[in-house]
């Protein structure tokens, strides 16, 4: 009997210890109350933010049925590339079929693909990709400079605080997200247009020269910002090395 107690106490202690090591909180498993036929983006895609930071606007996705009406109570699950994170990572859609989540970007600059998944009645997954852009220091500086100097003309959208000058220009400036244009121009030429004005590279003279106002590192920052937000994405054509 004594022997059983002698062994029993350490064993009990070990069991208690093991139980204590387990994580106390158990994440509740969500069960879908309904299934949709399509998953669409309401808002929140293609945002840019500082690396590692939460995005300003939430991601809103909507689950629809075959008729295009919102489905309430459908399960949507999010996975994020790299160390980006979506909170909450899973959720059920609200009465109007939408689900709103917040996204925090990863800690390296670049594009992060957020994949939202819902399941139809047959259990087949339906996915939706949302690409978010993380800006490093240089690109973020470019973004601030763009807001101050460039967006007045290059951004067609007017806000309450800033009325766009786009419509007033004889030659319409390119939106900085216009990859079809900017991806065909090399870094040196974009920098030259900013520094010496549009006329210096056979573009519109309405683009003034900013070389006297912005420093070289400011201009580089603007170029890197334009590259970062370009749509379709910009792929640097660098040297390619032969493998040995």
């Amino acid at each position, binding site marked *: 009997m004594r022997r059983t107690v002698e062994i029993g106490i350490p064993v009990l202690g070990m069991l208690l210890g093991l139980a204590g090591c387990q994580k106390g909180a158990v994440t509740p498993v969500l069960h879908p109350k309904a299934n949709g036929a399509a998953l669409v983006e309401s808002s929140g895609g293609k945002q840019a933010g*500082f*690396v*590692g*930071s*939460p995005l*300003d606007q939430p991601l809103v996705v909507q689950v629809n049925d075959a008729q295009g009406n919102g489905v309430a109570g459908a399960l949507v699950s999010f996975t994020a590339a790299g160390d980006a994170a979506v909170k909450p990572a899973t959720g059920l859609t609200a009465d109007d079929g939408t689900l709103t989540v*917040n996204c*925090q970007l990863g*800690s*390296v*600059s*670049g594009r992060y693909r957020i994949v939202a998944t819902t399941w139809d009645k047959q259990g087949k997954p339906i996915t939706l990709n949302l690409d978010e852009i993380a800006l*490093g*220091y*240089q690109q*973020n*500086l470019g973004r*601030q*400079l763009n807001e*101050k*100097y460039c967006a*007045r*003309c290059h951004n067609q959208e007017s806000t*309450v*605080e*800033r*009325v766009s*000058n786009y*419509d*007033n*220009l004889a030659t319409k400036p390119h939106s900085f997200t216009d990859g079809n244009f900017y991806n065909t121009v090399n870094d040196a030429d974009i920098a030259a247009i900013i520094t010496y*004005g549009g006329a210096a590279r056979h573009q*519109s*003279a*309405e683009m*003034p*020269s*900013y*070389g*006297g*106002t912005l420093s070289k*590192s*400011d201009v*580089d*920052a603007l170029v*890197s910002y334009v590259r970062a937000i370009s749509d379709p994405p910009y792929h640097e054509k660098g*040297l390619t*090395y*032969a*493998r*040995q």
Partner: protein
Amino acid sequence: MRSKLTSAWRTLFGDSARAFGSLSVILLLCLAVVPAKDHFREWTGYQAGYLRYIANRGDAATLKRRFEGGIQQTWLPAIGVVDRCTTCHVALKATSLEGNGPQPYRPHPVIPHKLDQFGCVLCHRGQGVATTVQEAHNSTLAWEQPILPARYIESGCGQCHQNKLTGTPQLNQGRQLLGEYGCVHCHTLNLADGNKIAPSDHPPLLTHIAEKTTREWIYAWLKNPQAYAVSATMPNFGFSDDDARDISAFLIAQSTKLNVAPPAVTQPSADSSGEGSSLYGESFCASCHAMQNAAGMLVGGNVGPELTRVGSKVKPEWLVSWLSNPGNWSPNTVMPHYRFDAKQLGLLARYLGSQTDSDFLAHVSLSPATQEQIDHGKKLVNERGCASCHVINGIKKPDNFAPDLTEVGSRSLAKIVFVPGVEHDLPSYLAAKIRNPHQFGSAMKMPQFTLTTTQINALVNALLAQTDRAEGLPANLRVPGPAPSDYEPAGPAGQLIADLRCFSCHSINGRGGDMAPDLSIEGSAVQRPWLVAFLKAPNTLRPALIRRMPRFNLSDKEAQTLADYILTVYQTPAFDAASLPASSFTQTERDHGKQLFYSKYACQSCHIVDPNTDKGYVGPTLTQAGLRLNAAWIVNYLKDPQKLRPGTIEPNQHIPDEDARDLAAFLMAQTKTPKEKGK
């Protein structure tokens, strides 16, 4: 068995020669342990891995030549940096490598500083001296400083830079929020350059609050300030019904009467309902005050309180008295003294009084206050530190009501009480405390603020910049912000500038706001007749601006006094404003200037000279530039806009002297109103 051992012993240690030989071998093996241990250190693996990683690249030879093996160290005694991070992060300067390659072989992203000038831990934190991954990055072994998450990296900049940097929007926003949300009323926060962050939320005086509003409104406001105004910066103190009842009783009881003669008011006629709204618009109240529009969006500035439900708050007699001269009620208010006449007062008061919300006070009914309630209310007001922000009769402003935050960014973890669910590091603690102070105990005095995740992120950045290292940095590394100025203009014009609260929006000689242009050298720019007319009736120079100079209804004499002072005192020493009379220009110069304006410099993209053809509205309208500006100003401004107006977005195009002169000649000829030009 035994015999075997004995024979082995004899073989090894049988005689002195054998013993010497064996002991030498054992000693050698023992000595080999240390170099062997060193050989298998973590960092040697990373360095070998790097050489394998670059081996197949075309630029392998260059990269290999730049690679230095062994423990690498950046030692900067002046700023207390001893960093061995580059032992594993060997490729920080190898810009030809991919930015998104595997760690630790990524090059450092582009920043404005040299890596060996500042080291790593100054911005990234972590243990610089450690040479293992765990110890360098995490807070194992009770290290104080784990690596800072990327979203707080701007705090590193804030240790040296107390000025506003373009590249650190989060840090700037955080520092601004500390003032806007009044954090610095209770917490002291000294920046390393010796400046203090000053509150910019302008909490009202409560000494005459019974004249202004009712006890019911105070009660409802205390229960939930954001229910009255979504943009309210006053935090929610989580008062119980009884507490709110007692505090409202005390605030009404301490309120004293203020003897202000009631202004003359003409009650507007019933059919003039739209005029009040128009006057609100024409007076540019929205430059400072916001109102919710029909769609629920806030429209307007955040300098003054939101006015969406102001009619449910203020008493009509107080409102007209306030509108007629706010300074009577609050000597330090930022609201200007408009010269409204009796009719305007009636219109504006009725319009604002009609901005009500019947739901807000629907469920509030308070029985008359008892002395016991008043006493309890006073006790609560003392306990919760209301007087840190508000002036209240009979309550002294508490000193150091909340902890000093000057060195909060290097607060020792041992001094912090953590709660479950909050990670054991300083940034997580700060964010959790700001998000929900009451999770750290219900006795916590800090109230609940209404902040977005982005705002909290910005605040944590600003707080993490407040380190003891920042305090001790050598002076040559410090980039101080502008020193606060107590500039006070003198004489009758000085009184007018104070009465009109020009400093609320304009900056002069380092003092004042940044909503409107700096006026320090405005006297060199403009002509007197234009300035007098503008002060009397500010017109729209920039069609796209929402925040505009209000019309104060100044008298002729007031406008002239102000104009004369501005023209005499606020002059630049750089040039003589009167040196280039408009009559000195020739027609040839004007014609050439016109050509330059429309083709070479394409000024019409941003400015309007001829409203029939030009459309640009980024910069000010120049239709009457010849009546407004001095030619000498135009010439000097065109040659270097940022020199005369720091921060302007007008690009410096290195315009040569003769072009600048011709452009000035063309602009000085623009003297007709848009209407006249239209003909």
